[in-house]
Every structure is written in structure tokens, then in C-alpha cells.
């Protein structure tokens, strides 16, 4: 069963993403900011990382850069969960090594459909 890491400082978004993924049968581990996410990622392997951009301690872009440095995350899909879908944001994400982005408002069905592009 694919295992996902969800990183978001907003409790409600994190719970919703996590709930959606769990009800679709995925395993989910949560982290509340980039730093915590990175710590978690160092301890286990994931099939997909979904991360918010704006977070305290370590933001999503930094987290993405850090994750790409880890040998276990070299090819792991990393999706940025964000409302900032401007081109600038996408470029910054891509530069940091992000695989793609998910645009809020968060829609569970859309989420499940889109992640199929990177995991099965």
C-alpha cells in the first residue's frame, strides 16, 4: 500500500487531506511543518510527499530542496499544496525539485484523481 507524507501547518487542511487519502486506502503520515516533515522523511520512505508552501520553521520550498538531497527521495514525487498557483510559484517549486502542485481550494475527488499521475 502506498505511503504518503502530508506536511501542512493548518490542522484542518492536514486532517482533510489525510482523511481523503486514508479513505482511498493509502497510508498517511502527518507533519505540521517543514522541519518536522524532514525529520519524519529521514526516518522512513514514502511514495509521495504532499506539502504546503507557507509554513513556519521550514517552508515547503526549502523542504523540497532538502528532501531532494536525500538519496531515498531522489525520485519520490513531491507535490506542493498551495493557493498560490501563479507562474512564479510553480517555477520556484520546480527549481526546488517539486514534481507538481495541487491548487487549493482543496477538493477530495480532484486530489485523488490528480495524484494518480504520480503514484499507483
Amino acid at each position, binding site marked *: 500500500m502506498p505511503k504518503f507524507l502530508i506536511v501542512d*501547518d*493548518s*490542522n*484542518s*487542511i492536514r*486532517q*482533510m487531506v489525510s*482523511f*481523503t487519502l486514508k*479513505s*482511498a486506502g493509502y497510508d498517511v503520515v502527518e507533519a505540521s511543518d517543514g522541519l518536522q516533515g524532514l525529520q519524519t522523511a529521514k526516518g522512513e520512505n514514502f511514495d509521495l510527499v504532499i506539502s504546503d508552501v*507557507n*509554513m*513556519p520553521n521550514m517552508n515547503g520550498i526549502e523542504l523540497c530542496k532538502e528532501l531532494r538531497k536525500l538519496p531515498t527521495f*531522489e*525520485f*519520490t*514525487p*513531491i507535490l506542493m499544496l498551495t*493557493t*498560490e*498557483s*501563479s507562474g512564479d510559484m510553480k517555477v520556484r517549486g*520546480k527549481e526546488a*525539485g*517539486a*514534481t*507538481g*502542485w495541487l*491548487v*487549493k*481550494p*482543496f*477538493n*477530495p*475527488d*480532484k486530489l*485523488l*484523481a490528480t495524484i*494518480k*499521475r*504520480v*503514484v*499507483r
Partner: protein
Amino acid sequence: MSIDLAQFLPTFLEESYEGLEIMETGLLNLQSSEDDSIHSIFRAAHSIKGGAGTFGFNQVTEFTHLVETLLDEMRDGRREILKSDIEILLQSVDCIRLLIDADHNKIVCEDESISKVESLLNESLNSSSTDTQPQNENKSEKTQTATDAQSWLINFTPQPHLVQTGNDPLFLFNALADLADLEIVCNTSELPAFSDIEPKELYLSWQIKLTSSDATEDDIKEVFEWVEDECTLEITLLTNEAISDVQEDEAVNNDTQEQSIQVQSTQPESEQSSKQELAEPLSPTAITTDTNVLTTKPQSAIMGKDKAPAAKAKPDVGSIRVGVDKVDMLINLVGELVITQSMLSELGNDFDLSKVEKLTSGLDQLLQNTKELQESVMRIRMLPISFAFNRFPRLIHDLSIKTGKQIELVIKGEQTELDKTVMEQIGDPLVHLVRNAADHGIESTEVRLANGKSEKGTISLNAYHVGGSIVIEVNDDGGGINREAVLNKAIEKGIVEPNSSLTDAQVFDLLFEPGFSTASEVTDISGRGVGMDVVKKNIQSLGGRIQVESEPGKGSCFKVNLPLTLAILDGQLVRVGTEVYIIPLITIVESLQAKAELINRVSGNMVLYRLREDNVPVLPIYQLFNLEAQCTEIENALLVVVEFDGQKVGLMVDDLLAQQQVVIKSLQDNYQQVDGISGATILGDGSVAMILDIPGMITMALKQSKIAQKTAVNHNVEVV
């Protein structure tokens, strides 16, 4: 699959209100863009907007978007942080709060402040030189709907580093396969010799023929959304003539060239379509959420229009945040309890008298465990008073603008803990006291300067524990209470007799009389004459009291004394006949044995007892509750003198028993309201004992004494 997100609504609301508080506090402290707090303010706004979109809180999403844009510019240093903008943002926080309530109740918020602040925000945004175009949030809508089966030819040539961004062509093809039937041809011509292969690079390209009746070009492009910058992608609609050529390598012939699209460079969505999308970002799931709320609360939707989206419609979030340390402590204690229990049951397995000592020590341990457990559980309900205090910086900020006075707020002891229920009910009275202090207490700048004071007035809030209660002080360094003005007003209103001599404390107490207001003119901040008496009533209903100290020219201090919790009470157990009653320890002044020479029978059956310089009415509990008492004569009887609101009463009891903490159970919830009884509790032996309602009993005693006096007078008349 539809997933019901309604269960996350309370979390979202709680989080949003927290976010608004963070914004408010941050904005009040915001000095410059160097300041770290701009980031937390932005994040809070950002989270609220994100969550609001998900739950279909459209009014919130739209409004917060403006706020977010402004904050974003400040955060990036593109915009100077001006006082005027902070003011607008603070008002925006209020608006967002109103809008969350409105959206939560499914009504359109018609508060005029919204449109006012909205136009202020837009004005501020437009005044900046920076590019403030609305972000294109969404992808273009489906512009084409094909009815007949169409075929598309997709040439997909990824850049070698594609897989290093976590993308995998296989998954993309799988996603495409979800849309339609595929025929895929892989082109391996670029594959180098085996020795030259870089394992992390991708050398393949693909040609895909996709046939579907409903997939549109946008659907296909969406699948490649994340890789469009890392590949060359050509999507061609195949006309009937072209289909036969598909298998050929040069599929892109002249006929179809016009329709071929370089995804890389296209941004086809027009302003209009993106606006449409913005206007209805309701996801299907959000709609399900709506209907759920509607079915459970049909009234709020129908009646909502009439009701102003009042601030009172607070979400009834019955949850509480507890520090992990408190939970850990509980778990530890429960662990110990389990150990004690197993030790005791072991002991009980084959018990004989030689083990009595072990049993006693085991029971002692159990007592200890239970006590600690009780304390820890109580601590869970305790929150630092900062929860009640943190609305005051904003209040003072607004008040100082409204009154034109310079006021500084000093908060001390914000970590002092208080029961959640008490906290919720003390907020409003405190707001009233602080408003009063700002409005009536602090003098205008001119007056302050003329009196040789600093131009800035100070209001300080202070909280600390004293014994089993918490004291909250509201201090101001203003002009103090004008004793003469208060007294004259009271005489004018007929509250006190002219020429009566009152102590300072008694005069200040007049402030709490119903209908009393000293402000010579009524301002919109305070002084409508309703208030101080309500403040006092609220505090008393919590089992607390309020005192005033004031010094002319130096300032005033309102001291609120509250019990730490409403769930547990320190009680004195007393016996009357066969019944046991509980008197709240906090009300007891002293207990004594009545001396015959100090008893003074007034008239009828009213008895006064001389306690130093006071005459205290004696209230025999056995008479009040119709009991058979052991002791019916006042001489040598035990009197428990209790006090409430400055009035003392001697309660006549048979015996004083232990003092202990009791858990208060409501009589109203379980039976009905009984005069003179405030609640009940269950004692150690399992019996039920009533808790005496001291304020109620004192009122009863006073009424009785009046009736007694009246009947006595009537009696005298008859005799004459």
C-alpha cells in the same frame, strides 16, 4: 467517490478564529517588514483563505484574498507598512470574523462595514505601484465538449532529467488511460550505447494515439500539467483524413498543423473564463457539506436573513486544548492507580489479619492516587487567563483612537490559570471594566499634562492566585473616582438618604447600583447606565465578588475575586437533625457557640445575635427546611456566621463535621430549583448532601426579618 468534509468544519472554524487572533496580535505589534510577525500574519490569512475555499465559504475567500494580496506585498517588501494600512487590516480582521459567521450560517453578510473595508482595501491595493493583478487561480474551463469520438495524437518527448523531479511517464500514461483508449508507440532512437547510458536520465520519447468521446484537449493537457516545462509536447486533433496516417512517423501533416498546440507556451485562458471560475469555486463535495448543514439546521438558513450576523453567533466549539504535559501526567497517574488496584486485589485474594497493615498502606496509596488524579483532571479544565486577556490590546487600540486619549496597556500574570467555564463568563465583565477605565478613568491628554502626569495613560490588567481563588485587577492611573459626584448622584437618584455618612468603600459600591451612571454625558463607549450593576451580577453569579479602590488624582483599581473552578467547592459539612448540609467555606466568617447574653430577640420569632459591633440575624436551618433538630434553643447553639455582599447571617446548626472538597452536581439538571439550595453532592458514604445557597438564604433571612417586623407592628397595633 464523495468524501464528506463536514466533520472537519469545527476544526477549520477553531483554526480560523485562532488565525484571526494571530493576525490581530501581529498587526498590533507590527513595526516593519523586517519584523517576523508579518510572515505569521500572512500565513494565518493564507490558511483561512485556503480552508474557506474548501468549505465553500465564498464571502470569506473573496474578502480574504484582498487581505492576503496586501499582506503579500508587505511581506515581500514591495509595500511599505503604513499605519493606515494596519488600521484597514485590523478592520478586515473584524470583517473576516463576521463573514465566517455569515458563511457558517449560510447567509449573506450585509454588514455595511464589509463593503466599506473592501473598498478601502482595493483603494490601498490600487494605490501601490506594484502589479496587483488578480492571480489566475484556476485552469481554464473546459472549452470544448466533444460529442463524437475524437482522436488525438500526442507527441511526448521528455527532457532527460524528467524522472529526477519525481515524475514517471508510466504514471502519466496510466492517468491518460483513465481518460480514454490509448495506443502508445515508444521511440528508442535516442537511446545511447549501453556503456554511455546515465542511469538517472531518460532517453525515450513516445507517440500516443488517444481516442475518446468526451476527453477534451484541456483534459489531456492537464495530465501533462506538471511536466510541461520538462518536455516537448505536441497535441494534435486528428481529422478523419489524418487518422489513416497515424502510424506514420510524420503524423503532423499540413492539414492538422493549424490545430497543433505547443503546450509549453500557451496560456489560453482569458480573463473572463478565469473570473467565471473564481465566481463559483464550489466543489461538488463542498455542496454536499452544505446540504448536510442545511438539513440539520434548516432554521438558520431560512431565518438567517432576518437575523443580523451578530457576533454572538459564536461557534459552539466545545473542545479544549490541553498541553501534552497535562495529558502525560494523567496517564502516569492512571498507571499508578492501576498498580495500586492490582496490589489491593492481590491482597484480597487470600486476606488474613496479618495483612491489615499492608491493606492500610494500600488504601493510603489509593487515597493519594485519587487525590492527585482529581487535581490533574481539574487542571485540564484550567487555561491561562491570557485567553481572556488577549482581546484587550485590540480593545485598547480602538478605544484610544475613539477617545483620542493615549493609552498604554500593561498585562501581568497572563499565565495564571483559571477554569474554562469561569473564563468564558468573565470576558464580558472585564471588557466593561476596561472600557470604563479608558472612558471615565483615564483623563484627556490636556488634563493629564495640566496635572503633571505623563501624557500617556496606563491601564493594567493583573491576575494572580490567592488561596483557592483568582484575583483579576483592572487598574488605571487616571483621575480616580470622584467621591462627591458619586454621592450626590446617588442622593439625586434616591439610592441613599441625604446626610447619610458612608465610608469610601460604601460610596464606591454605589457604582454597582442598578441605574447608576456618573458620566455626565453618555458616550458610545460606556456609560449607558446599564453595565456596572450587570458586571457585579455576573461576577456574583460566578461565586465571585468585586471591590473598588480609588485615590483622587492617582487612579482606580477594580478587583475581581473569583473561585478557580465551578465544578469543585471547598465545603464545611454541618449536621442539622439527621441531615448533612454543606456550606461553601469561602462564605464562612466564623463559627461560634451562642452566648445567652448576646442574644437579642427583636420581635416575633426574629433573633439577632450581637457579634462584636454587628447585629447578625440568626437563621435556624431546621425551621427553614422543616426538620426535626436536636438543638432548637439558641442559647449555646452552634452558629456558623456566613457573609455575602457585606451582609452577615448566623446559621444555627446541630454540629460541625469535616471540611472537604465536594463535587457540585446541579439540582436543576437532575430535579428542579429549590430555594436556599444551590446544588447537591455525593458524600463518601454514598449519601446525598445539599449545598446551601448562602446568597439565597441571606435574602430569605432578610425578607423574613422584614415580615417579622411588619407582623410585630401589626400585632402591636391590635393589642393597642
